[in-house]
């Protein structure tokens, strides 16, 4: 397969403006200027581009929500807060192909009539922030940012903002609150960001990878991009594969690849081990058992399998994994990262974390698995943002699909997968 998004990942020279241009960089933006905003939007719609941050929302449709009648500016906000556990593909783009993001941003900004964009970079991403900022400075010095770019009359500036270490600031309205200088609390909707977003203005929030695909879509056409994927989702995407595989890393593949093929590309589970379970789309995606991996990795394929494509963070677990312990780790994450604004998420993430901790400590009671399932199910769809719905994915799927392991822990006070290692490792968390 021809690498598209990852084509520059092993070419350090492409990180400079000169190198990026030598490989044809910024020609797509030139073409976009000729296409005009409506032409770009049409190509993006034809491309079947689905947002690659997690929700999988059609990008062209999202742009279309920006009101035609407006008085103030429109903002583009780039979500570079990549915080979904098991996901590290945006980091590759920021670090290894920063100009692809800038070019994508210019195309998007031109399409939605936006003169100022914000790049919200995860606080821990120091090197990506530095590399990207240098690239932006280079682009500005070369007149690719600023007023009247390439004599088009279109001007654009980029403001880079660093996060401060909160997962919830990757939720688009939490991100906007944080960007505005407030605590990173998601906003109650309506109004949606397209109507009232950053600083009260119509705002499009797009993921890094989503934007980085735009130069390719513009250069080679929406139909070409659509043809790479499935009927409802075009293109390739970057899969972050981690956990119990021989070669963890970022793999670019068409969205129609199956989970089994992807794991095989990463070298499969280590020799002598058996696959036990896989999280296909970042920590919030429901778990799949080893017998459920013959599934297409596109948004709709994974949805049909009862899980989600999410951020394409594939976490592989082999037969040395204690699922109650894995759930405890995930539950700790959600309890720690819940913003605390609305009641179901604030209270239940902590409650479930305490239950899983008690189970691992050998003090589980028989009702615990059902309590987890009941609490999780009751809270579905009851919160301000999708954070808690994301947490519910693992709560329910880990317990439902590996119920016996939970019951064993509760009955015997010890782990049957790693009789000597389980609880001790959990205690270290």
């Amino acid at each position: 397969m021809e690498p598209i998004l990852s084509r520059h990942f092993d070419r350090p020279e492409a990180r400079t403006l000169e190198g990026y241009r030598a490989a044809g960089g910024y020609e797509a933006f030139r073409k976009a200027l000729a296409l005009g905003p409506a032409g770009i939007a049409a190509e993006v719609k034809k491309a079947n581009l689905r947002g690659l941050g997690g929700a999988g929302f059609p990008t062209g449709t999202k742009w279309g929500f920006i009101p035609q009648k407006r008085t103030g500016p429109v903002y583009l906000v780039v979500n570079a807060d990549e915080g979904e556990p098991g996901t590290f593909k945006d980091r590759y783009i920021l670090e290894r192909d920063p100009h692809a993001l800038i070019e994508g941003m210019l195309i998007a900004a031109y399409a939605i009539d936006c003169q100022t964009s914000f790049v919200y970079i995860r606080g821990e991403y120091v090197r990506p922030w530095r590399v990207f900022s240098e690239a932006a400075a280079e682009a500005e010095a070369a007149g690719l940012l600023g007023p009247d770019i390439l004599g088009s009359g279109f001007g654009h500036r980029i403001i880079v903002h660093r996060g401060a270490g909160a997962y919830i600031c990757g939720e688009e309205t939490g991100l906007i609150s944080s960007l505005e200088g407030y605590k990173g609390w998601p906003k109650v909707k309506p109004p949606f960001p397209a109507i009232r977003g950053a600083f009260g203005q119509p705002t499009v929030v797009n993921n890094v990878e989503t934007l980085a695909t735009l130069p390719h879509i513009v250069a080679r056409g929406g139909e070409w991009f659509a043809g790479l994927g499935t009927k409802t989702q075009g293109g390739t995407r970057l899969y972050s594969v981690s956990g119990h595989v021989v070669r963890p890393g970022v793999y670019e593949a068409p969205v129609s690849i199956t989970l089994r093929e992807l794991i095989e590309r990463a070298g499969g589970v280590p020799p002598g081990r058996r696959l036990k379970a896989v999280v296909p789309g970042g920590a919030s995606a429901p778990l799949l058992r080893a017998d459920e991996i013959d599934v297409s990795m596109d948004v709709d394929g994974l949805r049909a399998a009862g899980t989600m494509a999410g951020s394409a963070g594939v976490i592989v677990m082999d037969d040395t994994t204690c699922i109650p312990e894995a759930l405890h780790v995930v539950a700790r994450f959600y309890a720690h990262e819940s913003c605390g604004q609305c009641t179901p998420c604030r209270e239940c993430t902590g409650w479930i974390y305490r239950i899983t901790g008690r189970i691992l400590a050998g003090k589980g009671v028989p009702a615990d698995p059902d309590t987890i399932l009941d609490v999780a199910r009751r809270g579905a769809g009851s919160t301000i943002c999708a954070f808690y719905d994301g947490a519910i994915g693992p709560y329910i799927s880990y317990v439902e699909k590996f119920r016996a392991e939970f019951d064993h822990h509760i009955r015997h006070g010890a782990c049957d997968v790693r009789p000597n290692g389980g609880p001790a490792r959990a205690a270290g968390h």
Partner: protein
Amino acid sequence: MPKLTIDGREIEVPPGTNLIEAARQLGIEIPHYCYHPGLPIAGACRLCMVDIERTPRPTIACNTVAADGMAVETRTPRVLELRRSVMEWHLINHPLDCPVCDQAGECWLQIYYMQHGLYEPRMIDDKVHKPKAVPIGRHVMLDAERCILCSRCVRFCDTITRTGELGIFNRGDHSELGVFPGTTLDNPYSGNVVDICPVGALTDRDFRFQARVWYLDRAKSICPGCARGCNIEVHTNQKRTHHAQGRRVVRLKPRFNAAVNRWWMCDEGRYGFGDLDAPTRLERPELGLDGARGAATWDAAAARLAERLRAAGPEGTAVLLSPALPNEDLWLARRLFADALGVRRLDHRVPPREPGSADDLLRVADKAPNRRGAELLGLEVAGAADGWPILEAARAGAVRLLWVVGHDVLDSGWPADLVAEALGRVDCLVYQGTNANGTSARAHCVLPSAAYVEREGTFTNVDGRVQRFWRAVLPRGEARADWEIFAAVARALGHDWRPRRAEQLFRELAEGVPAFAGLSYAGLGDQGAPVAGAVAEAAR
């Protein structure tokens, strides 16, 4: 106007009305914690879920604006089940310390648990611990464990006082209400956060542990703290008299009035009720015209005063009325002193020693609750800026009887030495009021007045709104309403005045003073009504 149905009943509401308010108009209560009609929407508690036709899952009512043709159901099985769950989640980390919580009895966790919770508790894990009994300001105590993080108090300080002292710190179930480092909750309206706190997280340092709320009696009233006339409720402790150090009035709470104070009141007004049960209260008439001052009966006091008034004559008599007297009392004072006795030295204006506090929210610099009423009754020395000509006349020896109502003229904006000189030259200084002060100490005759909570009447506020207040407790000692005192003196002077109720005096006032024409005591209701011309003036 959008027309919608709620639980099958049709209602039309003004555009922009949310579903909680629309339902309220039908008498349907949608339970909620974070929503408050005076504050921006937070959507955080998730208790106000309702089902809306063609909406896949329950939706919060507070952030949903009523739309034409909307069909809302507030009691579907899944809504009731979700409410039960949300109640469970609100309570899993709550300390359940109702027996020692001051909020018990008026706590919305208790009320809603009984109405919408009633689940079997299943939380067996340790609760999250947070700071308790933290004094976050002069008036407010915080118990962060009881807090349900509805953010009403935060939004109040952000949007109403715009002082922003409060914040919610940390994340998840460690989220915690607190003051920002280096600040305290000391804005002039801090007590309101206690009112709007639906639980026992913010309690009133003045009121806490004084009395259980179910022993309290309530009366509607008007704050006498300034000319704004905020609508209040007076809460009294009369069933457990050994509680609250014997104080009868234990707290004041704001009462909603859209035209005056909405939901709020200032701290000055809220905590300004200390004089009501203070040791300085004057409880019986005293006479000291013939040597040492001693207790007297009302009849004896009225008879001696009638005698002295006759002797002094209209030229030798001067009266400093109080702009804190209700309209009815000022009306009778005018009839007695101006009409019957012909006194011309009559005024209500004594400058304060220091200018009163004021802001653009509620507080008015003029601390007199009925200044406007006194002005409308024309109780002023013609051509003077304040009542000083009366004191000047007294200094010149022209006043034999000086009747002071409510004021401490020795502690005013007037030079104390000149005032003392003036008081020294009158033969008979009468002090009529609720509490002892420097002026009462020098009086030859002291007449104890009933305080505003001990009687009924009306005040006219700074905008010309006439508002009723009701009696909360009986007068202390032998104190009487001021109008009763004036009537008693009038009878001693030979007039057959027997007003029985404030309402009767108000009727006379409405007939006698053009500004009050058309108003009726009953018609004022509990929200008041403007005097003639007040509306036009407010519009200007």
